[in-house]
Every structure is written in structure tokens, then in C-alpha cells.
């Protein structure tokens, strides 16, 4: 639901990982992270079962784990597509939430500590942000954006359909 505060997503998640992309902090439910890989493992071409986990065109490459091909995507901290993969992107986070498999490159990753305020809804007046982001959090003197595998997949599909970069 586009403008609903992500209460359902938050209620089923007890822990979040903090992904750092260009200094922006994204929060992803830890139970959607299958593994962390290095960008050196990204292959240009998919293995034989290419397409099974495919959700959107133009991945930067593929990683095969657990007999599953994961398309890998690169986004800036503000959810746009960079011209090329920044050198700071060293880690690949493999995400899975049925039926979506996707990987995301990020600069750093850490566990969200307990010392933070409550998650708050993305204000209804903030347009597309309400769909891609499930909640906002004041964290470490900054702002962090909660999103999920499902929300990212929906965004990547829509983004490519519109040709937005």
C-alpha cells in the first residue's frame, strides 16, 4: 500500500542491517539478507539458469549461490542509477524475499544498534518516497531510510520501465 506506514513490515522484523551507500544509510530487514559477498565475485554473464531470479533489466552482473542466479544492481544512496559502479562499492548484499532474488552493491554494512528512536512514517506529501521507503529513522545524528527487498524490486522494475536515471 503506497502511503501506509510499514507497520506490517516492521512488526515482522526484529533486526535491521544498515547499508551505507555514498554516506546515505538504508535499513534492510536482516531476515531478507541471505549472504554478503565481495564485488570480485560478480560475473558479467549469468550461469545456465539465467532468468530465474530476474526482476529488472540492466543488472551490473550476476552471482550464483545455492543454485540460484542473483542479478546484482547498483544504485546511488538516493536511488538513482550511477553511470558506473563507484569504487567505494565493495560489498554485495544478496537479498531474498519470495519471489524476489536480487543483489545490491554497497560501501559498508553494519547491524542497527538498539539505541535509536522509533521508526516514523514517510510523510504522505513526499510522493514516490512513500512507496520505496517504508519508514524513516533518526539514527547516529543522521537520517536512515527503511526499505525492503519487495519495495526495491518494485522500484527497480518501475524505474527501468520509465527509463529514469
Amino acid at each position, binding site marked *: 500500500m503506497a502511503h501506509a506506514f510499514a507497520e506490517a513490515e516492521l512488526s515482522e522484523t526484529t533486526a535491521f542491517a544498515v547499508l551505507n551507500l555514498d554516506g546515505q544509510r538504508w535499513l534492510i530487514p536482516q531476515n531478507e539478507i541471505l549472504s554478503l559477498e565481495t564485488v570480485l565475485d560478480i560475473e558479467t554473464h549469468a550461469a545456465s539458469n539465467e532468468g530465474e531470479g530476474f526482476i529488472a533489466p540492466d543488472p551490473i552482473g550476476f552471482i550464483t549461490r545455492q543454485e540460484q542466479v542473483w542479478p546484482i544492481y547498483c544504485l546511488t544512496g538516493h536511488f538513482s542509477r550511477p553511470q558506473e559502479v563507484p569504487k567505494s562499492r565493495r560489498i554485495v548484499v544478496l537479498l531474498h524475499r519470495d519471489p524476489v532474488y536480487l543483489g545490491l552493491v554497497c560501501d559498508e554494512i553494519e547491524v542497527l544498534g538498539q539505541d535509536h528512536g522509533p521508526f516514523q512514517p514517510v*510523510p*504522505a*506529501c513526499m*510522493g514516490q518516497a512513500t512507496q520505496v*521507503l517504508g519508514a524513516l529513522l*533518526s539514527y547516529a545524528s543522521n537520517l536512515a*531510510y527503511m526499505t525492503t527487498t519487495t519495495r526495491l524490486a518494485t522500484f527497480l522494475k518501475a524505474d527501468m520501465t520509465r527509463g529514469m536515471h
Partner: protein
Amino acid sequence: MAESGAWIMDLDSQLQAAVGDREMLHVIQAPELFSVPLSPPYCRHVLIWQDHILPLMDLAAWLNGQSERREHKVAGILAFQPRRDQEVRYGALSLAATPIRAQVDDQQACDLPAHPSGWKRLALSCFQQGNRIIPILDLPTLFSDALTKASRVRS
């Protein structure tokens, strides 16, 4: 003759608007802002006020069909209640200067200005103060998704 208090706000060097005196809670000079990805050009930032994360609306930008201004000098913290049975909510409005309090009476009521045309979506009513026509803001609409929808229609 009914008289009530209002805060008159400069949205930019040309546009003014007003809210009721109980709707303006706080004024912040040079607010610390945080950008939100994928947000519309007239509402790119939030600020944190008393542990609430509030959207900062640049209403002048929306009314003029422009991108958000680069510098936000003043933020007015506003309270509103979408419906009587709902709890109070908060939002912030980017202002060009510190708001001024005024007493307004019924005889000052007038028609909304024709331009910018966006006023008719956002104004509850309007009054004349000196030679200025000042719309009174409908805050629940301003901080809803109404502007996003209206922008989609305009574009």
C-alpha cells in the same frame, strides 16, 4: 464581528499565507535538514523537531512550479488535525522570514487571488491585510498527498 489571531508568513518575496494562531507551534532559524530520496521537488527535506521527523514543504516552489529553493532560512512548525477523531500531526513550512502575528476580523474576508492557480487547492479562505491578499492554509491538505496528485495532473 468575529475576530481571531493569525500568523502571517512570507513564503518568498512575493507570496504570503496565514495559519491560525494555534497552528503555529515553533519557528526555527536555519533549520538542520535531511534529504529524502525520491521526494518531490517542493518537499525534498525533513527536519527533526522534538523527536518527530517532519516534512519541510516549500509551498512557494509548488505554487510557482519551481524546484525547491537552495537555502531554507526559516522553518515554521505547524500542527493540524486531519479530522476531529484523529490525533494532532505536524509539518514544517519553509519561510523567507519570521512570521508576524495579526488580528483578523470577518470584514477582511475577500476572494482568493487568481494567481498562482494552486491557491484554490490549498486555501480555506482568504483575507485582505492592507494591500495584500492573504490565503489561509488548509494544513491537512497541504501535508497530504494532494500536491503530488495535483503535480501529476499539471505535468
